[in-house]
């Protein structure tokens, strides 16, 4: 657990006017970006990653985490007002949020969403603060065999939870491993898959990969969609203040949904997209009037909103403690940690407690600021959706190119980002998970290094992965994660027509 001595200086850093201004500014930007359907945290975070280069690690991580939270907040606004979720994390919010908006209670629904997100976010952050040190402490027992198995389990969970075909999730993950192995091999110094290129000898850098896979590929999809604007509407009706009070009448719903979100967030691969629907369905099942769900009732907005924000904090738990990203955005977040020379895991919790506590205090403050900003700015945020795509797409491109270039001032980094963008665009088009690719890309060096170290420590025996208690448990979990979903699918009775 963190001592009080680390919290006070952390609060001092967060409450510096520059950092408060940053949190405030990023909250507004995140809310606005999140409001744009289709442009969620996975597009926003990569663009902001390079901005953190020159910053201290603590404020840098706060920037990324606030952006993550605020884009998730913003995504709910468009779900309520336009019936188009800004991100998949808010998809279930449409079910009751949009009917409320149609009944002239759009402002009320937004108020409910803001307060539920705030409480959900707070419960999630409490989970992050109290559970992380326990998990990190447990991670101390990990040796190379455990790290290898953990990387494999993380990848299997993410690949098998990828949208569409599980097999395609594995192909994408495998491709990520291979792309990551391009360059000088860390064990032998031998150049792999470089085809004589000096640029490739250094390996493919993380930032161009992230910007290409998520920001550029999204631009290509936007351009291809042929739409003129993201939406034709831009209005808000109903009183937000009435909505802000509502969640306090449904505290049981808020707490239950937040805990579901937190629990789902901790499992790698299961993101807020799963959390919001699970919480919504759980609430409908627990309700005395399940038939009212979908007609525009407060519980239908509270459940997904509390869960998706709790899930954001939950996804950071495996990222910070074990170095296994909880999902796509958490993988980008982990990229941000690594850029600052920090290694997630026990080391982060012992040697860099100051950075972590700064992050936690920053998140708590940001959660409150988001509630205030979101409530005040929602009516204006609605106007953002009328920005023409012809202006929006080039703006994202310009930001992406600059963000890629400033890292190392290398023209070939921009080319790499464009190539990753094209690959990402076609992967999405043909149902391959770009998230699985990125997670594998990040985990590959850890997995490969741990694999060799484990085998060397065990005098060349591969049994070490199965016979060590924690590693063996992880192996069993990996096998279960591989075989259970198809088995359950096969034996599940078909629903009566």
């Amino acid at each position, binding site marked *: 657990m963190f001592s009080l001595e680390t919290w006070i200086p952390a609060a001092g850093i967060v409450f510096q006017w520059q950092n408060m201004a940053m949190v405030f500014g990023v909250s507004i930007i995140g809310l606005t970006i999140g409001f744009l359907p289709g442009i969620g945290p996975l597009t926003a975070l990569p663009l902001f990653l390079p901005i953190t280069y020159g910053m201290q690690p603590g404020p840098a991580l706060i920037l990324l985490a606030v952006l993550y939270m605020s884009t998730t907040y913003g995504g709910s606004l468009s779900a309520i007002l336009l019936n188009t979720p800004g991100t998949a994390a808010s998809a279930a919010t449409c079910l009751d949020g949009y009917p409320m908006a149609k009944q002239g209670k759009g402002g009320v629904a937004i108020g409910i969403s803001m307060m539920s997100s705030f409480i959900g976010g707070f419960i999630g952050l409490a989970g992050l603060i109290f559970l992380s040190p326990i998990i990190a402490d447990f991670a101390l027992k990990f040796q190379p065999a455990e790290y290898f198995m953990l990387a494999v389990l993380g990848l299997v969970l993410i690949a098998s939870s990828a949208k569409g075909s599980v097999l395609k999730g594995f192909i994408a993950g495998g491709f990520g491993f291979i792309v990551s192995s391009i360059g000088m091999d860390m064990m032998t110094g031998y150049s*792999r898959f470089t085809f004589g290129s000096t640029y490739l000898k250094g390996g493919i850098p993380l930032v161009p990969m992230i910007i290409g896979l998520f920001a550029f590929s999204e631009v290509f999809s936007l351009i291809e969609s042929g739409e003129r604007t993201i939406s034709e509407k831009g209005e808000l009706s109903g009183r937000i203040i009435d909505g802000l009070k509502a969640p306090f009448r449904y505290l049981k719903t808020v707490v239950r949904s937040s805990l579901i979100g937190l629990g789902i967030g901790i499992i790698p691969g299961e993101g807020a997209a799963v959390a919001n629907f699970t919480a919504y369905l759980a609430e409908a099942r627990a309700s005395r009037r399940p038939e009212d769900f979908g007609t525009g009732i407060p519980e239908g907005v509270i459940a997904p909103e509390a869960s998706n924000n709790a899930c954001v904090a939950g996804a950071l738990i495996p990222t910070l403690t074990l170095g296994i990203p909880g999902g796509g955005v958490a993988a980008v977040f982990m990229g941000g940690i690594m850029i600052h020379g920090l290694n997630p895991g026990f080391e982060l919790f012992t040697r860099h407690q100051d950075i972590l506590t700064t992050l936690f205090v920053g998140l708590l403050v940001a959660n409150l600021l988001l509630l205030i900003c979101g409530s005040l700015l929602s009516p204006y945020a609605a106007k953002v959706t009328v920005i023409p795509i012809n202006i929006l797409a080039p703006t994202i491109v310009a930001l992406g190119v600059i963000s890629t270039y400033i890292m190392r001032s290398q023209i070939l980094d921009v080319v790499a980002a464009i190539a990753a963008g094209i690959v990402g665009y076609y992967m999405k088009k043909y149902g391959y998970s770009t998230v699985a690719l990125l997670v594998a890309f990040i985990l590959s060096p850890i997995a490969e290094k741990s694999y060799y170290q484990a085998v060397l420590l065990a005098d060349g025996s591969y049994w070490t992965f199965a016979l060590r208690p924690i590693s063996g448990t992880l192996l069993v979990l990996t096998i279960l994660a591989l075989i259970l979903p198809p088995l359950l699918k096969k034996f599940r009775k078909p629903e009566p027509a």
Partner: protein
Amino acid sequence: MLLSIFLFILASDYPEMARTFPRLVLVMIMVVTLLDMINLMRAEKEKTTSGEENDGIEAVRPGQQLKVLYMVALIFIFFLFMLLFGLAVGIFLFLLFSGWTLGYRRLKMLVFSAVIITAFVYLIFQVIMKSFLPEGIIFTLIGG
């Protein structure tokens, strides 16, 4: 599948420690791709017998694909603009050029948005972050 086979053969020349892991992954990709191909063929067969539409994968629209290629070209053009004119002028010209060529015809709005976005980007990257960005070959030549 072909790419995996090619890379697998390529990796056979590497020292043992450098090749084991990539080859392990490549074998996994080959096996999974094979399974995916079998699944795909099975689904195709079922589809032809039941006459169902393909709803899993988006259909490729050649006209829209051209737009994507066009956007890729525009990214290179932006980079060229940035090298030639520096960040501020480069981004302003790019936003005008790309907005217009992508079909946006309200010139006043286009100029207004280009000015606002340029000012925002300049403030963030050049003034606040003091990032090292190209100053612009043309301006360097003029300035001597």
